């Protein structure tokens, strides 16, 4: 600031640069400056709560007994002896894998569709992004009506298509297996726009000459997709998969909004169970332990995927 007053006339010799004048040209100063907000955010809102929950999970802390007494792995041993937790762990895997496979497959199909030129493509693209853009609470409310035991538009449609009779309406959210299928459907529906966008990016990155060569070489639809397209976009699929898995494994919103884990815990996932035990029931230490069980699984998944990617690059 002090330099600006000295250089008012054009003819004046350049003032001696101040110590701070070229500070913004210096990466050594800029890099920490730009990284600081992200670092502060991660430390305060991610790292600190994570460390805190690790500590909670090793203590006897709950809302009736605010002691930080160290109990070692007792909470973990407790939850692994609990049938509900074990069922939840299984549910989480089923939920994650099924929702991702369905979501990514739908995404791939959608991306293939969007690669073509047709009338109303812009509108279709807008529609496809909707599941992603609509607030999850709102969307899940709509799905709840669609799965409703009395007013289900799905059942109504199935009945009018003569696929089910009037007295055999499935109770989507009231029966254990159907409830699981329902939450998977909703989550896959939520994931597929993301899959479509990622696949679209991957597909458009394949050179046109390669696609043309493939057609001239005589490859049909399946061979083209499974021997050329998918292998070429594998790195992108892996990234999409990693994001999808992390996103699904830690998610509790669909389950919580649709079924609250019921009926009889059949749709609980780690997130929703941890929330119910730790927050709603006030057993913070067990809740923390449940949520931390996710950590090793996600770590392994991330390492495997990243290693796979690196190996392909070599």
């Amino acid at each position, binding site marked *: 600031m002090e330099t600006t007053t000295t250089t008012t006339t054009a003819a004046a010799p350049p003032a001696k640069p101040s110590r701070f004048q070229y500070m913004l040209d210096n990466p050594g100063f800029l890099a920490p400056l730009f990284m600081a907000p992200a670092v502060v955010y991660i430390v305060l809102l991610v790292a600190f709560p994570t460390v805190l929950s690790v500590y909670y999970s090793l203590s006897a802390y709950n809302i009736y007994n605010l002691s930080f007494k160290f109990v070692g792995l007792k909470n973990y041993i407790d939850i692994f002896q609990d049938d509900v937790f074990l069922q939840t762990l299984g549910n989480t895997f089923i939920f994650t894998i099924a929702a991702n496979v369905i979501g990514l497959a739908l995404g791939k199909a959608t991306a293939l569709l969007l690669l073509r030129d047709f009338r109303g493509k812009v509108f279709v693209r807008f529609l496809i992004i909707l599941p992603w853009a609509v607030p999850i609470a709102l969307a899940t409310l709509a799905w709840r009506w669609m799965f409703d035991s009395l007013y289900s538009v799905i059942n109504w449609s199935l009945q009018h298509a003569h696929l089910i009779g009037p007295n055999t309406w499935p109770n989507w959210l009231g029966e254990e297996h159907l409830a699981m299928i329902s939450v998977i459907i909703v989550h896959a529906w939520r994931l597929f726009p993301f899959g479509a966008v990622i696949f679209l990016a991957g597909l458009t990155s394949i*050179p046109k*000459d*390669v*696609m*043309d*060569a*493939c*057609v*001239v*070489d*005589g*490859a*049909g639809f399946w*061979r083209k997709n499974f*021997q*050329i397209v998918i*292998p*070429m976009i*594998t790195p992108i699929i892996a990234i999409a998969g990693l994001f999808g898995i992390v996103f699904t494994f830690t998610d509790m919103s669909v389950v919580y909004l649709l079924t609250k884990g019921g009926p009889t815990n059949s749709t609980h996932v780690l997130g929703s169970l941890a929330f119910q035990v730790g927050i709603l029931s006030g057993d913070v230490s067990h809740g923390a332990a449940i949520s931390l069980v996710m950590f090793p699984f996600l770590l392994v998944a991330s390492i495997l995927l990243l290693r796979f990617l690196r190996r392909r690059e070599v």
Partner: protein
Amino acid sequence: MAQVEAKQIKKQFGDVTALHGIDLTVKEGEFCVFLGPSGCGKTTFLRIICGLESASSGELYIGDKPVIGLPPRARGVAMVFQTYGLYPHLKVRDNIAFPLKTQGTPKDEIKPKVEWAAGLLGIGHLLDRKPRQLSGGERQRVALARALVREPAVFLLDEPLSNLDAKLRTSARNELKEFQRRIGTTTIYVTHDQVEAMGMGDRIVVMEHGRVRQVGTPTEIYDEPANTFVATFLGTPPMNLVESNGHLMGFRPENFLHKSIYENLTDLMDINFRVARVEYLGSERVVYGFLEGIPHEGEVMSKLPVHVGHLDLREGEQYPFAIKRQDLKYFDKSTGERTAKG
């Protein structure tokens, strides 16, 4: 091997007409070059022959078989692309084997065929590499091997040399021509490079704005251009065009020489030439200047081979130049088409 016959092939992209009804027969075993500037429709025509693009109307025969409506794989054609279109995740071996696998060739026949194709192109030692480990010239050969391996009736090549550096391009040109002569497969080659066209083509199809402007051997195209487009598109520098008696008179720079070079020849047209500037290009000199007595806004050029280097041409001076009358071509002023002597 097969001949390719196109009848009134038209292609419309929305309001734009890319091809205005093309008639052409490419003979069996011929090396035919489609030559023209960017956007003249040559690649579109090639893609229609290949089946990657559909014609808006017209008929197309490969061999004697009508192929309109058939997918590329049913046409017996193989194509080499400008960027080669190799499959980056597959080894060279699997790249070459790919078209065989799609045809359902038995496994035990694939390996010898791949090795035969790779051997023909001298890339046998590269079979276990991935495309990104290869140089540009090697990639181009892999692409050729992949096209060759299923022994197509017609080879289609879309500017396959344009991604190579200048030196490699010259040797690749010779190899490609030699290779085609050896296997004798009907070949259609698209390029905008007149040197490639002249050097490789048995016949050249010169195209402009979706129309064929002339079809002929390199000599015919160069010496007897059918119109001013062909006359000025081929040749470096291009043919000089000046107005004379209501016609356009054309003559090639290398035929427009100092009178002393002709020695005792008669039947010359003498013109005084005022030199504006001289470009020295090593093996030749290109002299820019103006003709005396012929109204013409632009410059004309003379290309003097280096063996007449003793001629001292100074800028601003006027010299006696001449053209053999047989080297003068006349074109209609309004249509640009070739006419009889003006």
